[in-house]
């Protein structure tokens, strides 16, 4: 009996390893497939959340997806280009407000949803060129503060004009895609979530392709040594412009996705502020420079865990009033997010994605030790 079981087990083991080897082979021949698989996994997770006890959490999930995508655009700048930008959040806000202005059409008349996307993206290319102009002269903290200036000017100007509803959040309402198909945040949140996941997956695959192309190699060379890259004939100016344009366009796509999903534009001083720019930067640093899945991990650590877990605990404590009226843990999620950032930088300076590599190394070591022990038993 045991012999039969053992035989069945080895048979099973053999097949599993065969399948996993085959999957590995397919994945390594088409690496883009892993992002598709990840998108499918996110759809499943989203479905579980949506049909579960608190369907509202699907909002958090969508926001995390959008922020990880924008962070990936920033990673292209920071990890591959060695450049920094603190104007990401205002650019996202401008894209969101721009979509509302074009689609609702109070001032200029209504524009088709897809045409509006094209117009906003073209404008964001120009914005990226403007920021890129600054990067030709400055580096490091000077560049960071100069881009902060840029974002600040955007926010100030938006606050001055009625067109941008004085920088405050405004409702966009249900989106009409084709003819009669319109999606509203209240009724079709699941479809909107699917749109978010699909767009994020496509953008991530696009970024992956860019980074594996000669353009990506040029970014890599510039990030290591500008002078060496120049000596090899890489035009540093051109690629700096390109890096800023790409990351600005990705940020604009993030803003468009946000306004498509939430159907509100968000205020410049409470949502699209310096704190969000810094948090996006934190996602890149905490998740890991030059890593793709690290962005999702970073967003999960900084936004996800505090939102999913601690907000509920806070609500719990406030409802019960365990420690009387005065004792409230309102700031707990902020403290936790801050602590996570600090701990991640202290213990994983190369990014939280390194956790998986450490675990993998540990697993291999464990397997080897176990194999060694088995051998010794056989000898006995």
């Amino acid at each position, binding site marked *: 009996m045991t012999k039969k079981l053992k035989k069945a087990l080895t048979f099973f083991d053999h097949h599993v390893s065969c399948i996993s080897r085959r999957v590995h082979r397919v994945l390594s021949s088409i690496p883009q497939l892993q992002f598709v698989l990840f998108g499918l996994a996110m759809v499943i997770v989203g479905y579980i959340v949506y049909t579960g006890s608190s369907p509202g959490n699907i909002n958090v999930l969508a926001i995390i997806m959008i922020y990880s995508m924008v962070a990936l655009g920033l990673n292209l700048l*920071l990890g591959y280009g060695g450049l*920094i930008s603190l104007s990401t959040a205002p650019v996202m806000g401008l894209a969101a407000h721009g979509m509302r202005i074009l689609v609702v059409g109070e001032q200029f008349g209504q524009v088709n949803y897809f045409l509006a996307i094209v117009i906003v993206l073209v404008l964001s290319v120009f914005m990226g060129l403007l920021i890129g*102009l*600054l990067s030709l*002269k*400055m580096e*490091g*903290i*000077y560049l*960071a*503060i*100069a881009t*902060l*200036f*840029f974002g*600040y*000017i955007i926010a*100030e*100007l938006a*606050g*001055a004009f009625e067109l941008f509803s004085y920088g405050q959040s405004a409702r966009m309402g249900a989106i009409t895609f084709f003819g009669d198909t319109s999606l509203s945040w209240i009724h079709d949140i699941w479809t909107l979530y699917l749109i978010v996941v699909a767009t994020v997956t496509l953008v991530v695959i696009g970024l992956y392709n860019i980074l594996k192309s000669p353009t990506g190699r040029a970014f890599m060379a510039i990030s290591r*040594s500008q*002078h060496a890259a120049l000596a090899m004939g890489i035009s540093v100016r051109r690629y700096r412009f390109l890096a800023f344009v790409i990351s600005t366009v990705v940020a604009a796509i993030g803003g468009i996705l946000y306004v498509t999903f939430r159907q509100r534009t968000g205020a410049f001083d409470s949502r699209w502020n*310096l*704190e969000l720019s*810094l*948090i996006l*930067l*934190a996602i890149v*640093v*905490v998740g890991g420079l030059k890593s793709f899945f690290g962005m999702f991990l970073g967003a999960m650590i900084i936004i996800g865990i505090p939102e999913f877990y601690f907000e509920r605990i806070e609500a719990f404590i406030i409802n019960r009033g365990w420690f009387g009226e*005065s*004792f*409230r*843990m*309102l*700031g*707990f*999620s*902020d*403290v*936790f*997010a*801050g*602590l*996570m*950032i*600090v701990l991640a*930088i*202290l213990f994983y*300076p190369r990014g939280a994605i390194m956790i998986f590599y450490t675990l993998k190394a540990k697993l291999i070591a464990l397997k080897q030790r176990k194999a060694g022990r088995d051998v010794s038993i056989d000898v006995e």
Partner: protein
Amino acid sequence: MTFEAFITTFFISLRHGSIVALATLGIVLIYRTSKATNFAQGMIGTFNAYVAGYLMIHHGASIWVATLVALITAFITGVIIDKLFIRPASKSSAVGKQIMTLGIILILVGIMNMNFGLIGRVTNTNNRVTRFIPTTQTVSIFGQNIPWDTVFVTVLAMVLMGAIFWFIQKTRWGLGVRVTASNEPVARLMGVPTRTITMLSWSVAAMLGTIAGIALASTQGGITVGLLIGVQISAFFAAVLGGFQTFHGPVIMAYVLGFTLRMSRYIMMTVFAQSSVLADALIYTLVLVVLYFMPYGIFGKAPVRKV
């Protein structure tokens, strides 16, 4: 623009410029000694100004006593932040340290929002944070009544910054600060206690931020979490415009920027009858153009780098 309006605007902007200059000096001090862009400067100041506000509102302490206690807590805050967060991360990159200060911001905001019945209630009361000197006492300068409080804050800031400049330029420890700022590893090899200097610069920066926070809170009458955010951003702009490489450039530019902003707002509102926000945007665009042609600030020079 009348002469009277000019005098009033001049003194108001001098006071605000002093507050920004204090925050700026803190940021530059930390950037030079521990190579970290301190985004938390404003929040550390706000946090300790909360302590002062709590003492004033709930225990009726006078502003002098409250400020003294807040300065002591600021010193401790600086030491804790350096010991727990910044020094262990000394090997991480500049961006890593920058993000570390974001973590500190989030922790401080969280603690301020935790309503233990202590600090958080500062904003909920009708009591007010008083001024250093009541506004009824004024001094006549060129026929304009300027509150003594404005003069006091300006003079206090200038004396403090003058003392710090004297300390940096003339004393033995100041030499240590300059050496640490110029090359930390070599300074350590030469026997300069760079760790103590870094720690002290965090503490001094926290104390400067706290004074700025209390001075600003006393004009507004209350303290909110976002008290120093505007000051923090202005301080960064001043620091970049003046050049991070020097100590005096950012402080001068803090006054210049503060004065220019106030004046342009006034002119925009009275002469052109436009929103004051436009004036801000105009001045900032101008600054950005200046920065394009002088990327390392007006007083700074381009850093020399080995290839």
